[in-house]
């Protein structure tokens, strides 16, 4: 996996922890597990996460991709964000 994609995934994990004010280090728990737990407790938090990701990367996600299973797939999400940045010229 290329280094750039790894950086993007790290940033997504950090945004997740920060935007939801989770009191854990972002490498302590797998991202997928954190997302599952948050979704069960409060589905609004997922929306706050999406909003924070969009702000962090300067993109707007396609409405069709606002889907739990897609958000849960970290590599796919990171790849999508990179493509969006490229397509829109948004700054990282």
């Amino acid at each position: 996996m290329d280094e750039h994609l790894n950086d993007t995934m790290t940033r997504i994990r950090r945004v997740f922890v920060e935007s939801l004010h989770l009191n854990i280090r972002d490498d302590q728990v797998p991202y997928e597990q954190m997302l599952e737990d948050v979704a069960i407790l409060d589905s609004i938090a997922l929306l706050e996460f999406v909003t924070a990701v969009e702000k962090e990367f300067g993109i707007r996600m396609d409405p069709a991709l606002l889907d739990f299973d897609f958000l849960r797939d970290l590599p796919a999400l990171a790849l999508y964000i990179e493509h969006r940045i490229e397509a829109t010229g948004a700054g990282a």
Partner: protein
Amino acid sequence: MRTVLSVPAAAEPLLTIDDLLWFLYLYPLRILSAIAPRRFLYPFCKLSWFRARKRRDVAARRMLKARRPGMSDDQIRHIAERFLANSAVRMLDDLVLSWPSYARRLRCREIEGLDHLERARSGGKGVILLTVHFCAIRIAKQYLASRGFPILTVRDEIAEGDWWGRLGRRLLAPRRIEFLQAIMGESVNVQDRGCVLKIVGRLRAEGLVNIHFDGLAGAKTTPWTFLGARRNFSTGIFDIVRLSGCAVVPMLCLGRSSDFRIVFGPMLEIVQPPGRDEFIGANLPAFVETMEQQILKHPEEWEQWMSI
């Protein structure tokens, strides 16, 4: 209370009156509804009334508590009778919706306030159609969908129900859930983990989402006085409005499948203070007042008198 026809050794009866009523409704009555006129079917739906006297009395007591000034006890009793009659009408309308040809059988007298809806849509951030549980809401939404206004409905998960006997639970309960899911059109359960994302996805695609403001489900709630009693309101709708920037338009649906009206009200003015709690506090009163006015003006149409 359950009426037991046959009690085997097990704790749950083999068959209950509700099993029989649901069987009649889901099979012979549904088939008849494709060909028979409404006036022929209506008495069958009234069969459920023999168990409904208590419901009517409870509804009347709650209406008394919430009534508009100047409304007499006699008027309240009359409204409670009509409330009961409307539950039979809704059952009939559900049968109509269960047929693929339903769109041809719906008769909408008028759609009022379409300009309000168009103005809200022109904002480009989607529209929440704010409603309460009125009898005609399903037929109105299906009608609008058939006319090019598809609506995503947010609803509570359909419960299996605790009235079944063993036979009913095994044979009829799954069929009842299938039936209800089919007549509700496109919907998302509030219990689904991706529910909010699906709602916002629809709003961002400039679509329409229907939320029943008097729904009881929600992970986070806030109490407010509603129709003279304290009621917990889900705060999810306010989070969605705050984070998506969508418009909110009250929708009122009155009547029955053979003659109904749809009324869109002016967009609710959304106050935008900083902070989540402040946003809820600033907007909740207007939402409550708008919905209370609908109910007090048409109390016989509201299905939730039993749950306040």
